[in-house]
């Protein structure tokens, strides 16, 4: 894809929710979300001209976002040039019924190992086992096995 500002903006507008939801599920506070979000955007921009279109843009964005979050060096201090995101609601502080559901979802997912988090997030996105396997880099059968284990873990979390 040609590395132009127009293409980049179009990509961000189409996939901002995906990028944010991935960063949110891999972070523990708003600072970390913003850091991961900024880092993901930088990686998307830098990789834009390397994207050959063999997979859809959505799949590519998922890969960049998940790779950024899984491989991010968490011990780094907050980036000095991180820009606050533009929201009119705070998912962590607001105690509305909907936000409580989001927090519960975050609690469940964040207790999983990073690769399992990636698999669950892709499954929640209604992706097929084949697509999940292609993004994660394991076999389709391994995705199925992994999801069964994740379900057991989630069930045990609820039981505890």
């Amino acid at each position, binding site marked *: 894809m040609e590395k132009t*500002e127009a293409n*980049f*903006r179009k990509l*961000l*507008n189409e996939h*901002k*929710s995906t990028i*944010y*939801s991935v960063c949110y599920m891999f972070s523990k506070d708003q600072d970390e979300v913003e850091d991961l979000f*900024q880092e993901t*955007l*930088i*990686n*998307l*921009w*830098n*990789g834009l001209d*390397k*994207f050959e279109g063999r997979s859809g843009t959505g799949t*590519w964005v998922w*890969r*960049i976002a*998940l*790779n*950024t979050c*899984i*491989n991010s060096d968490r*011990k780094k201090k907050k980036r000095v*040039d991180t*820009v606050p*995101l*533009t*929201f*009119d*609601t705070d*998912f962590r502080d607001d105690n509305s019924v*909907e936000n409580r*559901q*989001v927090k*519960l*979802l975050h609690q*469940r*997912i964040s207790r999983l*190992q990073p*690769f399992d988090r990636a698999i*669950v997030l892709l*499954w*929640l996105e*209604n992706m097929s086992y084949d697509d999940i396997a292609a*993004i*994660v*880099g*394991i076999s389709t*059968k*391994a995705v199925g096995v*992994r999801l069964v284990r994740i*379900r057991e873990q*989630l*069930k045990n979390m*609820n039981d505890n």
Partner: protein
Amino acid sequence: MEKDNNMNELEQMREQMNIFKSRLDKQQIINEQLVRNSMGSKLSWIKNFVLGEIILVPILLIIMATFHASEGLSWWLFAFLAAGLIIDTTGDFIINRIPKSQLLGGDLVATSQRLTKMKKQRTSWFIAGMIFVTIWLVWFIIEIVMRLDDGCNLPDHNIVVGIMVAGIAIGALIGIFVAWLIFRKMQRTNNQLIEQINQVINED
């Protein structure tokens, strides 16, 4: 019944995610400054560091050559330093030549494996660098002491030499300790990621 409960749980999570994403769709999230920052991001600091090394090494070698000539230190010591710096810079360039942004477009396991390999290479190269610095430092101190011993007319000559050697040794020990702490931290990061990758790819 249990299977139904599991499915209800996951379906509940799917509903929660759908609510979350539909709320996100109504938010602006991305602002102009964020987009500008992302497009204007500088080259990664690692790439800048390697470029800096390539520029600084010749300058450093000129300074050290001048110092060696003025102090009468051996040219074998200088050749050792020059070879070490050139090899180190070349190694840094080779290890870091693939930008992280290029690595991230692949599948998660392959990307993590490549990044882990890169980190391990850096660690090995760092250890080799520490060994080189230690050898050079010892050799340098010996030559300085021998140089001071040759026709040195300073009063309290031994005290001067002792203070100089002690100062260099203390500085070197502090540097090595700090470097060891950094190395340990890097190893921990590597090991955590390797463990996760192995868990995921061993499902078959």
